[in-house]
């Protein structure tokens, strides 16, 4: 028996030059599939935070808030108010827009507000900074807009915030 009649392995398939061919649906669908991970890598669907800064004669307010948030994820809203006047501020009312806050669930604010979403800060000495933090749990999809207003006797600053909650 010759070697050809008793090969070591079965016959190999014939060599055919491979050429990738896509159908029309694949030509449309594959780039669409690729777009989502690519945009994700570019940070489009990621959680984002934005800072706003407003100043008045008495108050310097810096707000760091979640600009993009995913459903059922927690975003932290931080408001730092600083007394830039030369005298003690007896009271400062920090008001979080009800229309904005109610679009989230399980909102926790520290220090706890006495009225609905109004935090009262008292006896803020010159150049002293107070921090108010709120945990927002993404609930309703879409874009939510509101204002954060710091009010002192005779002065007021307002900052617009906008958060998009991904489904």
């Amino acid at each position, binding site marked *: 028996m010759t070697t050809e009649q008793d090969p070591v*392995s*079965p016959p190999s398939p014939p060599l055919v030059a491979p050429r990738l061919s896509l159908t029309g649906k694949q030509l449309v669908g594959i780039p669409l599939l690729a777009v989502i991970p690519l945009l*994700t890598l570019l*940070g489009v*669907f990621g959680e984002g935070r934005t800072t706003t800064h407003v100043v008045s004669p008495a108050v310097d307010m810096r707000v760091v808030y979640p600009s993009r948030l*995913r459903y*059922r*994820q927690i975003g932290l809203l931080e408001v730092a108010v600083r007394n830039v006047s030369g005298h003690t501020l007896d009271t400062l009312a920090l008001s979080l827009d009800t229309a904005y806050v109610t679009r989230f669930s399980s909102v926790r604010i520290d220090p706890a507000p006495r009225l609905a979403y109004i935090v009262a800060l008292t006896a803020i000495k010159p150049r002293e900074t107070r921090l108010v933090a709120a945990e927002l749990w993404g609930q309703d999809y879409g874009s939510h807009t509101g204002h954060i207003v710091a009010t002192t006797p005779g002065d007021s600053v307002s900052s617009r915030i906008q958060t998009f909650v991904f*489904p």
Partner: protein
Amino acid sequence: METVFRVAFVYVFVWGCFRILGKRELTQMSPFELVTLLLIPQLFSRALTRQDYSMTNAVIGSTTLFLLVFLTSAASYRSARFARLMQAEPTVLVRRGQLLDEHLNRERISVGDIYSAMHKVGLQHLAQLEWAILEGDGKIALVPAAGGSAAQVPDQSFRGAAANSTSLLDRG
């Protein structure tokens, strides 16, 4: 962003594990089908999604996985070297009725497995076999020897070398 990396990592990790385990563990499904089936439920579990149950995260994870599957298959088709890297080469277990012990030991295929596959296609003796090949997907392909024994194979209309095959999963 992390979801994309996590899915890609798990995809490569699971593929690597199955390549290390060998063809014995791959049965009716191709490695990529198996990886896909294992991964998709995980995309919606907290382990892979870091307790991010949003639809956005699930869509990102699944599209990443589908894209990886497509890219892998396209690259395997275009490049023989990549295909060899991704999928195991077939292993001859029986040649002209002779068991190849070294190959059987390496693939952890018992003689009983060979006989079980033979019985399913109506073969009784090793001498009736031209080839028994453990294919890259884990199935045992049987090529009956030319002559009288082929008459015992139920489906003779099969083309070429892959005359009949049976899965390890089918073993009793």
